[in-house]
């Protein structure tokens, strides 16, 4: 909070310049076009992780984000395939559908705390997978395949976003889409956390009874936070379905839910931008270790354990310790 306004603005501008100009320029210069896909995934996963982070912010451990990502993906895929909707319209619908579902589910389960909430949300991921397998509309284990690429989006005859199928480089388009959404998402998060609601959420994290006794409507707040969290999950799932042009019950599993949570932990639970950094490090770490072949998971998890021993409060806590010393 001690950082002054100009530094903040400079940092934001620098960040935007890097993701929108420097990274595409560097990629086209070096010719590593597959990096687009990696970075798109990082951006999307960090949106979902941001949602998980928000539930951490109200003091709940959320291991159920995979369920909403899967739901969002299916909602978008079904609307596009069966009802011929435009992808751009399904994107907010998928998010809102997830938010509405999460309100219904959240009302009872948000009364749970600690490990109980963690375990229930973990089970929720499994429920989503089983539902996707059992429901007739989701086409079972075969999933929904060959979803068309997002079409053009035009308002009053002006084309805002061109048809992805006609683009030469749809990877770049997806990258820009994902990064834009990520920036918007983290802007919302930052605004939310530094608002009155954010402060109230923090009071929930510390002591719900106390907050409630002062007159904070805790039931309302936590449902709102959970709904926003699920909205992010749904949106990121919907874009994932569009990029891979397919969705299966196994697209988002318990492992993904756990990973969303790990991203938050790794970045640091006390920092809004923690999930972004955590996702970047974890995803890239995993990708880089691909060359080690069968030892990939061993090294990856080993490093994670070591990191946890050295920096149990997340990567961003490094900055904090130096600031304290200074």
């Amino acid at each position, binding site marked *: 909070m001690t950082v002054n306004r100009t530094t903040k603005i400079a940092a934001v501008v620098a960040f935007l310049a890097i993701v929108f100009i420097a990274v595409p320029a560097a990629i086209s210069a070096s010719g590593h076009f597959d990096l687009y896909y990696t970075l798109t995934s990082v951006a999307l996963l960090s949106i979902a992780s941001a949602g998980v982070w928000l539930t951490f912010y109200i003091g709940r451990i959320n291991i159920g984000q995979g369920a909403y990502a899967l739901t969002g993906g299916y909602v978008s895929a079904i609307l596009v395939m069966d009802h011929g909707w435009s992808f751009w319209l399904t994107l907010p619908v998928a998010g809102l559908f997830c938010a509405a579902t999460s309100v219904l589910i959240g009302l009872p389960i948000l009364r749970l705390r600690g490990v109980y909430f963690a375990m*229930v949300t973990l089970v929720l991921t499994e429920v989503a997978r089983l539902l996707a397998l059992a429901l007739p509309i989701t086409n079972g284990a075969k999933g929904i395949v060959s979803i068309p690429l997002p079409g053009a989006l035009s308002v009053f005859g002006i084309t805002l976003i061109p048809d992805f199928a006609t683009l030469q480089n749809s990877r770049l388009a997806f990258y820009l889409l994902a990064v834009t959404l990520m920036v918007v998402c983290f802007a919302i998060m930052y605004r939310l956390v530094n608002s009155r609601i954010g402060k109230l959420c923090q009071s929930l994290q510390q002591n719900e009874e106390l907050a409630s006794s002062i007159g904070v409507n805790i039931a309302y707040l936590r449902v709102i936070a959970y709904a926003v969290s699920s909205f992010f999950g749904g949106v990121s799932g919907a874009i994932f379905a569009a990029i891979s042009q397919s969705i299966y019950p196994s697209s988002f599993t318990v492992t993904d839910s756990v990973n969303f949570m790990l991203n938050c932990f790794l970045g640091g639970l006390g920092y809004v931008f923690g999930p972004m950094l955590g996702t970047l490090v974890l995803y890239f770490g995993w990708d880089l270790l691909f060359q080690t072949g069968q030892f990939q998971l061993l090294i990856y*998890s080993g490093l994670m354990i070591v990191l946890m021993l050295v920096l*149990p409060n997340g990567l961003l806590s490094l900055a904090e310790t130096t600031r304290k010393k200074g």
Partner: protein
Amino acid sequence: MEQVIANGLYLGAQYALIALGLTLIFALMNVLNFAHGQMYVLGGFITYTVYGQLGLPFVVALLASGVTLAVIGALMEKFLFRTVIRRSHREESTMLLAAATAFFFDAVILLLFGEKQRGVPKIVKGVFNDVGIIMPYDRIVVGALAIVFIAAFVLYMQYSRVGRAMRALAQDRVAAQLMGVRVDRYSMIGFAMGAMLAGVVGGLLVTITGVNSGIGGPISIKAFLMVMIGGAGVVGGAIAGGFILGMMESVGLTVLREYGDVTYLVIFAALMVFLSVRPNGLMGKPWG
């Protein structure tokens, strides 16, 4: 009908034993051990190696599973969890550690034992077929052994010095420390015992269902379910949760057969409703 109940009891006995280990670790350390299923798989593979490959008696194999896992559990507590709990601002950080160890075990198991489904020769041959129940003898033996282990565990917790210390620790860590209980030592023993239970069940069940490297995660989820039903951190709750889940699975598989593979969906839905009425499970302490 008798068949359904017998199956339920058999499943319940195994499940209860799995849940006991998880709940013990949770009660003592407030750690949700994500790696519990992986410990189970590791125990299964050790029994497979000792009994199936080397041809040593089954009892030796079971002992080997238990002892190896106990050692691993003790080391994990001493070098990983204790350090992180001391250094971290938030208790939940142990979950990252637990998840990381789960991945680590997965990797180790995959490297050491491969991804193939492994089974061992039956420990007892023949099938029991009377009073409307058909059940292979080896299942009966395994079920009975599981019940014996559960009873032994409960008696040990109730009457031994170590058990008393651990119960004190679970009730109130600080108070136990003030009364002169060596908290660090008993946390370690508790973690080792929890891991040992997982290993022993793995060893028992490899004789019936076999084992493969991918079942760790699903087993962990089942264990979480049981603990939620019974209430986290309570021995009685874990046993009750295990038998309830075993029964529900057995009944569900029979009753819901014509609707396809929906048993677990129904169980999950029922659990959600149950937990919204009783957030702490059957016997859990408020807020774990």
